[in-house]
């Protein structure tokens, strides 16, 4: 049984790399020791600490649903030292992973409901695990209609193009809405910011859960739209980001009030967030 109490990562090997955009890549990895994957037990919404030895560690959400196979997918944006080195790695190379950490999307409580996902830019990654979970053969019948509304600055900034354009629309009872911020020649789809597009699509709150992830500014303007559409605070779920070092609830830095994002989050409902200090 892998010991998630340790600060010691396990080696993984990169089996696939997808260039999502010029600065975002999705890495598919497998543990060198298959028993670790057997017992990993990650749930949609959880995160891992990726170790690039010599640079340090970084918290990255597991973007793959556990239903998709015995591997983990991490979508990494190149923002700092560690991600810079990670982006230069190739298939077959290794780094370290420890986890799974954090809480997960309340997928049990969501059963029987329609799901409306909203993602912005690179931040579709943390909720993608739940999208695939709900659309999996194993659990599809537990959920109703699955809709994904996704916006990026431009076509070049769109992540998971394959999922959005081909894989998901083909699945049963899905609705995919994509938008970019400003018009572009090679784009025939919707143009406009995510909050405005949500207002246009106007999902009904009846028997629905909204799951939102994106940059703070997008979340700030999207939440009021859902409130206007009649969604209650308990119906809106989001996942937060914070600087993390231990991911074990010990190093102290990821707290929002009395909660640690690495242990009590990163998934929070809007109702929970309203009871927490606005310090994130």
């Amino acid at each position: 049984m892998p010991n998630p109490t340790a600060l010691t990562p396990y080696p993984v090997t990169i089996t696939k790399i997808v260039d999502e955009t010029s600065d975002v890549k999705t890495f598919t990895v497998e543990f060198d020791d298959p028993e670790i994957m057997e017992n990993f037990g990650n749930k949609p919404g959880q995160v891992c600490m990726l170790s690039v030895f010599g640079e340090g560690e970084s918290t990255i959400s597991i973007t793959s649903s556990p239903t998709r196979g015995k591997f983990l997918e991490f979508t990494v944006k190149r923002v700092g030292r560690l991600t810079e080195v990670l982006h230069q790695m190739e298939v077959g190379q290794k780094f370290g992973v420890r986890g799974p950490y954090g809480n997960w999307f309340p997928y049990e409580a969501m059963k029987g409901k329609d799901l409306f996902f909203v993602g912005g830019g690179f931040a579709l990654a943390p909720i993608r695990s739940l999208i695939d979970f709900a659309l999996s053969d194993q659990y599809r019948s537990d959920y109703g209609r699955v809709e994904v509304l996704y916006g990026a600055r431009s076509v070049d900034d769109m992540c998971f193009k394959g999922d959005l354009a081909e894989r998901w629309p083909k699945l049963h009872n899905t609705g995919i809405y994509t938008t970019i911020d400003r018009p572009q020649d090679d784009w025939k789809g919707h143009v406009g910011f995510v909050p405005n597009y949500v207002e246009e699509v106007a999902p009904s709150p009846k028997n629905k859960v909204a799951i939102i992830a994106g940059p703070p500014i997008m979340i700030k303007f999207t939440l009021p739209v859902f409130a206007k559409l009649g969604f209650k605070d308990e119906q809106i779920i989001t996942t937060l980001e914070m600087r993390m070092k231990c991911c074990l609830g010990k190093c102290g830095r990821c707290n929002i009030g009395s909660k640690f994002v690495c242990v009590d989050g990163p998934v929070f409902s809007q109702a929970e967030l309203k009871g927490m200090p606005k310090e994130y």
Partner: protein
Amino acid sequence: MKAKIVNKGQLSGLLDKLAKDYDLVAPVKEETITLFKKISSAQDAFLDYTNSDVSPKGCFLPQSEKIFSYTYTGDSLEIVKPESAKKTVLFGARPCDIKAITTLDPVFEGEKFGDEFYSSKRENTVIIGLSCSKVLSTCFCYAFGGGPCDGTGSDLLFTEIGDKYYVEINTDKGQALVDANSQFFSSENTDQLAKDKEELAKKLAGEFVKKVDLTGVKELLDSDFELAYWDEDPYKKCIGCGTCTYVCPTCHCFDIFDFTTGDITGDRIRCWDSCMYPEYTLMAGGHNPRPTRKERIRNRFMHKLKYHLDRYNMVGCVGCGRCIRKCPVNIDITKIINDLKEVAQNA
């Protein structure tokens, strides 16, 4: 609860033996500073002190420690963990500092995940406390349920009375140490010494200068995160150094980083960090949830007085007073508590 006596003249013999059988950590004096260090003989111990400048929490959460060594080429990875903790005796820690260690226990051992480094040190260390014989003007352990002669958390508690030490045996670990060193522990009747200790505790309780009243403070902090109080002092005078957090026996924040020792080798190190530093919560994209000193000061005091209590049912401060002594600008947690109490009363 059993008790023994150690005659003062025998103490150095006991410490010398402990230094042979264990890693013995005791207070030492370096010029004007008292701190806890490993000693090899009793004569290095300095026991004529009120409280040390840096707390003994370093015995369990060292300023820096190696988590593992690695050899990494990108195509291969090897990790070597450090040896587990050696058998240690921590001698001479004051009751407030020992209580502080019990507030660290739920952080490292009680959250969803444990911490092998902390736990192995905790298991392998015998804590021998030393009751206070004097109260400093900055002490206020009573405010949080502690006291200058309180044995909570200690395996053995020594209290100096006349030319003897009255030794209370509080745990099996303590008993085992006494049994293994019985030549130093006398089994004379301790009834009188027990009474003397109570007298001492009463006397010291009357010597506290700081009057601290927590009435209504937690409720106030629970009810309003955006108190106007935080817009005034103390954040304006705070210079944002890490002194308070580093001398504090209950602070536990740490950083983790890799330190390369060669082309493909290195160590992953854990070391103390401070919530008072701006980059503590700085995220890779540049966003900082606590961008100014106001947010950081508010977070520090709310953590000590509310968050720690919420999570672990224990207050995050033990009243040792070090932060008050060492703060360059005289930010005083007791003043903040009393100010908040007034705000609560006037609300």
